[in-house]
């Protein structure tokens, strides 16, 4: 029973790929153990009878606040680009989507 939901290395690897993270083998082992322990804690929620209980996703008392659609704080392109890791001619520069070593050049 206790091991029924135990997360294994291949699952951790899968979740890492969903989260756009990667781990080396040592870290993968460590994370698998730690996440397993925490998932055991998470699994204690199955003891709670929640039949017919509505979930709470937010406790705000505000709904659909509307405001005028007017632009503010415009003309800050230069300031914004200062935080970008790589820029060129007023644009953010990124590597090719496809591996450049596989390209036609």
């Amino acid at each position, binding site marked *: 029973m206790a091991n029924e939901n135990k997360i294994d290395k291949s699952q951790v690897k899968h*979740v890492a790929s969903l989260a756009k993270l990667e781990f080396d083998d040592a870290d993968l082992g460590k994370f698998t153990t*730690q996440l397993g322990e*925490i998932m055991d*804690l998470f699994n204690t929620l199955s003891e709670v009878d*929640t039949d017919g209980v509505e979930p709470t996703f937010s*406790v705000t008392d*505000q709904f659909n606040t509307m*405001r005028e659609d007017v632009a503010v704080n415009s003309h*800050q392109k230069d300031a914004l680009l200062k935080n970008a890791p790589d820029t060129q001619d007023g644009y953010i520069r990124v*590597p090719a989507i496809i591996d450049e070593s596989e390209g036609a050049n």
Partner: protein
Amino acid sequence: MNYFDTDLTTLHTKLVNKEITSEQLTKETLATIKADNEKLNAYITIDEDAALATAKAVDEKGINADNLWAGIPIAIKDNIVTKGLKTTAASKMLADFNPIYDATVIEKLRANDVVIIGKTNMDEFAMGGSTETSYFKTTHNPWNLSKVPGGSSGGSATTVSAGGVLAALGTDTGGSIRQPASFTGVVGVKPTYGRVSRWGIIAFGSSLDQVGPFTRTVKDNAALLNIIAGHDDHDMTSSDKAVPDFTAGLDGSVKGMRVALPKEYLGEGVDENVKKAVLDAASTFKSLGATVDEVSLPHSKYGIAAYYIISSSEASSNLQRFDGIRYGYRAKDVKNLEDVYVRSRSEGFGNEVKRRIMLGTYSLSAGFYDAYFRKAAEVRTLMINDFKKVFEDHDFIIGPTAPTPAFGIGEDSNDPKKMYMNDVLTVPVNMAGLPGMSLPAGFSNDLPVGLQIIAKPFDEQTLYRAGYAFEQATDFHKATPEIGGDK
């Protein structure tokens, strides 16, 4: 100098009467926090030039006698964005990030002529309870340098505790203001969800996050909440309820008030001296004319599991924005776009942040959503109902803030599950969106112990009334650590 023997009203009067200028005050404050920072590591950035320029400008304009905060230096947790002042969230990911706008709370402070003195250390992206997950440095507890100050707002708590500043802002997602306030012997308040705008707070758990004040006294705390609270068009979860004067009604009386003491909050794992401090506090409230009843919050023990599922899920979503493209860290020598994402995130985030992202991604992933995220949201409803039931016939709840006093640096940092369990008494308040306070209530082995007070949604007035009455009836807030600037 230090702020041990003064308070907001005293300092304000001196500023109005020109016994001291904001520039002098700021200079002395800078000298103290710079010297203390060698030992305490409370600050990531001390903004000397801008702080002095602001102070000078406030002096030239003249101290407004009706504005208590004019010319007073305040420290800000480093996950609250400040225009032109580096804001890192204590992460390598944002090590060089310079925001181009001010968070709403910062705008409000500036509008009140507050002097922003620097940005305080914290757990990376506010994930942690010890300030040890900071990419930059480990903050030391002023009461015992080998102990953690708590977290995640450990730097803000530390600088107030050490008398470096009169007040600081922190954020609290699962206890990140109250627990460090408890560990360092100061007053920390997490307001009701929606009381303070979250615009410009680097998001962690968006249904849980709130900004709140650290101070030495309850009254100063109320005065700071006065100027940061209120609706904000930029945060649609901020409430449009009227903001009362939280300092009104602080008369030391709790006569006839009904206090609840949940039996689950004094259960297994709670340090004996912490228990004693809370039971003594119950006696204090009784002696002041309140009644104290034992009550039950039966779903408390599921709070940690439900909280870590929800907060990690929200975090995994919020932190998707850190992709190495528009701002923040980008890995070097990347071959393609996928590489930018994966390597920048893997190199830019620390282990605790990665753990939360992994837990959240797992809890939200296909096939597990119902068993984890939805289940946790249902348990959240039950936790809210527990509180509602107690508040049907009680005005406020008391209990410990944390199960133990400050633990040793390095003691829990390799055991994430143990670290998470430290939050068992603070997370229910965030789950239910309630206001909560921690204030000094005793000592355990020469380390401060905090009393937690919890009130109904948007009833911070009762929180402050109760806190003030307790503070006036006791001497715990007068104790100060040996460290701190010379008098």
